[in-house]
């Protein structure tokens, strides 16, 4: 019977992790280009129960559940029109390359700006890399910046560079925070097109997350009920079965 206590506890622990994942998804519902996470649960390996007296096999039993994986949902978010010349959304599988202190990182958060050197940067100030792996310099003192669907950047009609989009191999993508991910470039997949004046919304669906939240809380509650029921059973076993009148 005590085994049940621990099985129910593993379910509650998994529900806590799922709760954390849902909280992070909803907290980032306003982060452009954010990709939500999905907590995937699995059961522990089955073990074979054997009656110790008769040596009869009683059958398999799993000893609980755990979160096997927190998978990144890479579905594209919807596009939002902003009209700002340095907002870009990527229509397709591509990622923008960013030169950070720690090396090249990738982002889908296209709310870009410029720095003092005229380099196009992310909101964190890290330069966005062009097709040749170099930062793109625009002269902020001169007129309108135009970005073509293929990522070619022109200022007042003069070409100054091209955004270097890359597709990443799905399983290699690891989120690092600050809207950045690492991953292995995938040369075989076309990176898609750039939409200037748009931002990609987070791909978080509030309704789904709310439903998950309810389900998750009730799962947690169910785990608690199981533990209390087992506790009551143990209470009877300890305090009533053995009572001397």
């Amino acid at each position, binding site marked *: 019977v005590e085994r049940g206590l621990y099985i129910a506890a593993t379910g*509650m622990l998994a*529900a*806590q*992790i799922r*709760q*954390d*994942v*849902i*909280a*992070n*998804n*909803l*907290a*980032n*519902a*306003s*982060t*452009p280009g954010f990709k939500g*996470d999905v907590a995937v649960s699995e059961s522990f390996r089955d073990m074979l129960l054997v009656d110790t007296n008769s040596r009869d096999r009683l059958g398999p039993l799993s000893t609980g559940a755990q*979160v*096997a*994986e*927190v*998978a*990144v949902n890479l579905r594209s978010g919807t596009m939002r029109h*902003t*009209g*700002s010349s340095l907002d870009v959304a990527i229509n397709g599988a591509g990622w923008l390359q960013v030169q950070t202190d720690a090396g090249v990182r990738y982002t889908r958060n296209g*709310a870009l*700006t*410029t*720095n*003092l050197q*005229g380099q196009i940067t992310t*909101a*964190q100030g890290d330069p966005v890399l062009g097709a040749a792996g170099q930062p793109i310099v625009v*002269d*902020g*003192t*001169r*007129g309108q910046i135009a970005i073509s669907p293929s990522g070619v950047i022109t200022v*007042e009609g003069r070409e100054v560079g091209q955004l270097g989009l890359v597709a990443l191999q799905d399983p*290699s993508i*690891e*989120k*690092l*925070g*600050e*809207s950045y991910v690492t991953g292995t470039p995938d040369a075989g997949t076309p990176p898609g097109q750039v939409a200037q004046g748009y931002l990609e919304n987070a791909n978080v669906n*509030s309704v789904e997350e*709310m439903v998950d*939240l*309810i389900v998750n*809380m009730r799962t*947690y*509650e169910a785990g*608690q009920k199981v*533990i*209390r029921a087992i*506790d009551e059973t143990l209470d009877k076993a300890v305090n009533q079965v053995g009572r001397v009148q």
Partner: protein
Amino acid sequence: MLDALYTAASGMLAQQTAMDVIANNLANANTDGFKAHRTAFSDLLYTEIGPRQSAAQGQEMGTGTRVTAVQTMLGQGAMVDGTNTDLAIVGNGYMQVQRPDGTTAYTRAGKLNVDAAGNVVTPAGERLIPAMQIPQDASMDTFTVEKNGRVTVRVGDQLRVLGNIQLAVFQNPNGLENVGGNLFRETANSGAAQLRTPGQQGAGDVQQGFLEKSNVNAVDEMVGMISTQRSYEAVAKIVTASDEMLSIANSLRR
């Protein structure tokens, strides 16, 4: 124990900032030359909750969101008709004014006035750079600003040139600091002001008789407000739900 509480709290904080920014935008919807702001979000660091079991299976969990920047949106505001002392800039440039402490500030709000001493000033009394003085017997009806920035006024039959307005442009106009009173100040991020003759090298034209209103789009702001409020509500629900879960855990022990 349940990071969800703190994760959700980070979302509430960020949405509060977003709401403050929207409130300021809407409050300044009728401010001449005002540039709207926008809150830029990004996700916080991720923590490993277990060993990576295979290349395909991540075990990282996010810890919330934060405001990375409040960006100034530099788009042109709408032009409205004004008097002959109203100037609008069509393009990138900024007019220069002198603040009371002697420093130079930059503005796109071109509502000019003449103070008691005849100086050309902003409504708040900052003098235009270069300083211009209207002669006492000049007729203000003849106050003219040409597209290239030359300011003239007639005194009797004579045409007097008061000065040439130059426009300041910046390498990184996103880096300008808002100091209130429709003014911007240059910072290490914006780079030093480069003075240009209006109409040349992308500085923009000076248009007399027009005023640039704010570039706040009321509809966008209202939609942003709704989405901000609902996001706030959603993360607040996470806090309540996490609280309930903790309460459930606490009632394990009867």
